[in-house]
């Protein structure tokens, strides 16, 4: 059951990290504001569902987010690009900052009441006396659908092939000719729309609040580092892995002392570290994984590029 929850969360992470990876591979930009678009997706969907219901929001909100993303690329990033990578990164950093403030301004500083639609509320099935909610199933459905659509787009269309070529050979992008700016805008818009969609379906499953971007953002970066910068397959594996780790660890209430006792080491009682439970450790596990990967396999799980 935890497994299913983990996969659901992992798929959500992948919707974010895939967009981030695509943008990074094509444009060489690490979009610091990526999770901000995720947050915008959730808030847009909340607003639209307040007016017209959940279903129109599911479609419209990601498109709106993608449009915002494309505009940002066209009028901001392209300008920052002339000043180099650091300026680009700082631009997206400032953007993340600004989006959070705008959200504060428009929707307030506390969480908004963005709920799961009634028709998706309830239990899909029960396993080992735990319920699996319909909405989680729906999230999986949307994520997998998105995944297949992305796969089809990358393998079956012209623009997809160009993107793929750029993934393996970044210098290829320069040889593409005159429509590079448009492709950049499309990729950025598409990547942010994916993040927006993740926000639409994740915002009500978790919580829609101004802090959600920062909370998810750093995890997505961990995913990308662990998977290997610029590798979609790596991002996928790392997303699922981290999704599962986080979900499992939250459910485990044994302490570090117990863990060491399992392998036959008795820790001195009473120290603060030894009394921590795995649940308490949950927030730092992804980062510990990242450190471990960096020490033992600096390229990331599937990474091919050294930077």
């Amino acid at each position, binding site marked *: 059951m935890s497994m299913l929850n983990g996969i659901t969360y992992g798929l959500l992470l992948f919707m974010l990290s895939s967009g981030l990876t695509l943008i*990074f591979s094509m444009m060489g930009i*690490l979009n610091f504001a990526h999770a901000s678009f995720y947050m915008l997706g959730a808030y847009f969907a909340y607003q639209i569902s307040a007016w017209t219901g959940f279903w129109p929001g599911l479609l419209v909100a990601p498109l709106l987010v993608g449009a915002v993303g494309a505009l940002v690329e066209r009028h*901001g990033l392209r*300008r*920052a690009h002339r*000043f*180099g*990578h*650091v*300026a680009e*990164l*700082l*631009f997206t*950093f*400032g*953007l993340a*900052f*600004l989006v959070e*403030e*705008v959200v*504060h*301004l*428009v*929707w*307030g*500083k506390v969480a908004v009441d963005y709920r799961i639609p009634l028709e998706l509320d309830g239990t899909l099935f029960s396993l080992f006396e735990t319920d699996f909610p319909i909405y989680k199933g729906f999230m999986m459905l949307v994520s997998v659908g998105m995944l297949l659509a992305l796969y089809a787009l990358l393998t079956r269309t012209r623009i997809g092939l160009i993107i793929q070529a750029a993934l393996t050979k970044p210098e290829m992008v320069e040889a593409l000719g005159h429509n590079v700016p448009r492709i950049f805008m499309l990729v950025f818009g598409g990547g942010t729309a994916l993040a927006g969609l993740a926000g639409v379906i994740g915002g009500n499953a978790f919580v829609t609040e101004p802090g959600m971007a*920062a909370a998810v953002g*750093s995890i997505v*970066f*961990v995913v*990308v*580092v662990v998977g290997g*910068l610029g590798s979609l397959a790596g991002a996928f594996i790392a997303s699922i892995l981290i999704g599962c780790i986080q979900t499992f660890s939250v459910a485990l209430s044994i302490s570090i002392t117990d863990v060491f006792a399992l392998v036959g080491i008795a820790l001195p009682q009473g120290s*603060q*570290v030894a009394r*921590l439970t795995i649940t*308490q*450790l949950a*927030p*730092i596990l992804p*980062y*510990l994984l*990242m*450190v471990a990967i*960096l*020490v033992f396999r*600096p390229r990331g799980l599937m990474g091919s590029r050294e*930077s």
Partner: protein
Amino acid sequence: MSRAATEILRRRGRLLLWVGCLAVACVLPLLFKSGFLVSLLCQMGIMVVFALSYNMLLGQTGLLSFGHAVYYGLGAFVAMHALNLVGKGGGPLATALLPLAGGVAGLLGGVVLGYVTTKKAGTTFAMISLGIGELVAACALMFPGFFGGEGGVSGNRVVGKEKLLGLTWGPQIEMYGLIVAWAFVAVVAMYALTQTPLGRMANAVRDNPERAEFVGYDTQRVRYLMLILSGFFAGVAGGLTALNYEIVTAETLNAHTSGVVLLMTFVGGIGFFYGPIIGAILITVMQIVIGGLTHAWLLYFGLFFLFMVLAAPGGIASVIAMQRALWQAGLLGRMLPHYLATVIPVLVLLAGLVGLVELAYALLAGEGATAGDEATRVLGMQVHLRSAMPWAAALAVSAAGAAGLYWIGGRMKRAWHETLSTLNGGRA
């Protein structure tokens, strides 16, 4: 003039500048005798050290870090715990030396964490620094024994009964003196570092890591050492914070603090040693002055930052340096009228935009949201938030400002390009 003679003159000028800055820092609080000013100056002094330590990474070594607050925070916590230990039998001298304890903590933090982060440069370094920052911030909440949980750790900087040269560090003005002393030493030390073999090789690694390897330097080692030293100075700044506020919370080492120091440094200008000093002073003033006036301060700050990234990526210091070059070439007079003319539409546009933002803030986030049709005070004026008038007025002012800027700004841009080509033509 011979090169040696110019060098001597330049060195004298530099010394004069150092002494002048120190004198200004010492005299300012005595001139105004305002408690508000003194605490503002204290905050500035601390931020100057912190921002300069950050620029050792970003400006000098080319490492964009999103987790520099970790070293600052570690320094602050260790200094605070040390203060509480000293409190059991120390005196003012021990208290005065506590920032050093903070520095050592930052340095050790750099030794441990930097080993992981500096394996990579560039974008990867940026991401890893963020991850490590989050890791430490999460740990801070996990170990309330050391980090004090939600409430933080607090202490009292007045220790014992005796005095050191008549000082107890109790009054804010005495604390300010301590901060100035530490800040001055730290700034001089950081400047000196830029003039050493390691400092210069950090520049080389920033410009061209590959070539640095082919002249015998291990770029990873250079990055690692710079991070450790930068951690030391960040820790000193953290130690000063601990003494200044007498409380340290987990906020000191989280991503927000890392973000603020990045913004300060960048806005000030990463290409010049004095850039971060300008940034730290300016942003601290803005933070406290504008932050006291409006809730929308962070929004303005974000917009200001984006504007700087797009319009002056070299920061304020580069703008100053440019004007200085114009002045030396005798061309500044040509540009001045244009600058002055541009100020007018900029002010009009700003007024309009601020009006819009404040109205929106009052309507959406402030008490105005529930006030309905009653009049609300916005920017000192009584306005009805739900009537069209104030909105239309603000919009009109913005539009007028934008139109004026388009017209006058265009002329300034042309004049700027002309002047620039004259300047460059004269050089070549």
